[in-house]
């Protein structure tokens, strides 16, 4: 929704949506934790800090505009994912992982 501000500039009533990813102290990867609204990228980062890391959850934050995310469609679920469901041999479960290999 947009309207014209008092000086004629077009103003959007709603801030765009961003998705937030946080990496924890012991985490190796950023995890999607939720979404928020912000006027621009810098504000999104600060909002993410205020909304999602206030209990000391994170050491790193990524934010990305929700509009920039390309998602698979639920309608394509079967052709996308069903074929991999019965390929147990693709899992590395048929041999022992040495102790010296971390994060597996």
């Amino acid at each position, binding site marked *: 929704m947009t309207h014209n501000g008092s*000086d004629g500039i077009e103003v959007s009533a709603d801030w765009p949506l961003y998705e937030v990813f946080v990496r924890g102290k012991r985490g190796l990867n950023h995890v999607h934790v939720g979404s928020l609204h912000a006027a621009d990228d810098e504000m999104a980062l600060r909002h993410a800090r205020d909304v999602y890391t206030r209990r000391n959850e994170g050491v790193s934050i990524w934010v990305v505009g929700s509009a920039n995310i390309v998602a698979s469609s639920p309608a394509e679920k079967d052709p996308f994912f069903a074929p991999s469901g019965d390929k147990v041999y693709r899992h590395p479960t048929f041999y022992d992982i040495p102790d010296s290999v971390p994060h597996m």
Partner: protein
Amino acid sequence: MNRHDDQASPYAGLVDADAHDQWAFGTSFDDPLAGVDTTLADGIDGADLATYCVMLADDALICTQRLAQWCTNAPEIEEELALANIGLDLLGQARLLLARAAAADPTIVPALPEGSPVPAEDALAFFRDEPAFRCVRLVELANGDFAHSITRLLAFSTFRLAALQRLGGSRDPVLAAVATKGVKELTYHRDYAARWFITLAGGTGESRRRLEQAITAVWPYVDELFRPNPVEQRLVAVGAAVDSSTLRGEFDSVVGQVFRASEWSPPTVLPASLVASRSGRDGIHTQALSYLLAEMQSVARAHPTGTW
């Protein structure tokens, strides 16, 4: 870490399970200065140090109460959390400073009924009357609109950050430790306020008009931040306090940068008048503080022996 847990709850892998006992300030210990040596260093007067800590604590406490009043009233839920977070940072500072004040001079703590479990820092926050409050008048002013609150926060956080940076070298180790912790917090508060100030200045005609009104209302209370007072001066002489009047240069330089980025010239407004040359630090306040205290203190005062 188990990958399946990750997927069940995104927070499972984020929160440090071992550190839960202190996930929020003040939830897991009774005495905020437990185990801390509160002996006074040579030459530091206990009564002076207590009064000085109360000044710093009251600035934070009253500012917290004003920030908390934005809950359910902020323009966006994200801003509401940001303002509440800032308030909680300041509340943490106030609690430690009031506890330090009570340890330095126990006679300042209001007397409570026999057997009251209220700790000293709570007694100071909730059972002192208005004239005993030593906050600057800047923090007690009503919130006004968002632009008004941002303008006040910009002035307050710039001043307090400059003060805490120097207090990290205080000869009172407790005050120094509280200040060092607070510097990280205030750095974010100032950044938050400055960004919003510049955003509002460069926004619409309406946002700029409101900001202009806010500056006119808030800036008369800025001078008071830098007024020397005798308690502070005596503690400066023994290396325990920072001389407020020396912070003006840094304040003007930081705020000047924000005003330049906003394409605004620094305001030239007359300072708010003093009352027989006394103001907030002397217990002389605006009418706004009495209403604020009535709201903040009424529940605690109704239950002086309550356990929370």
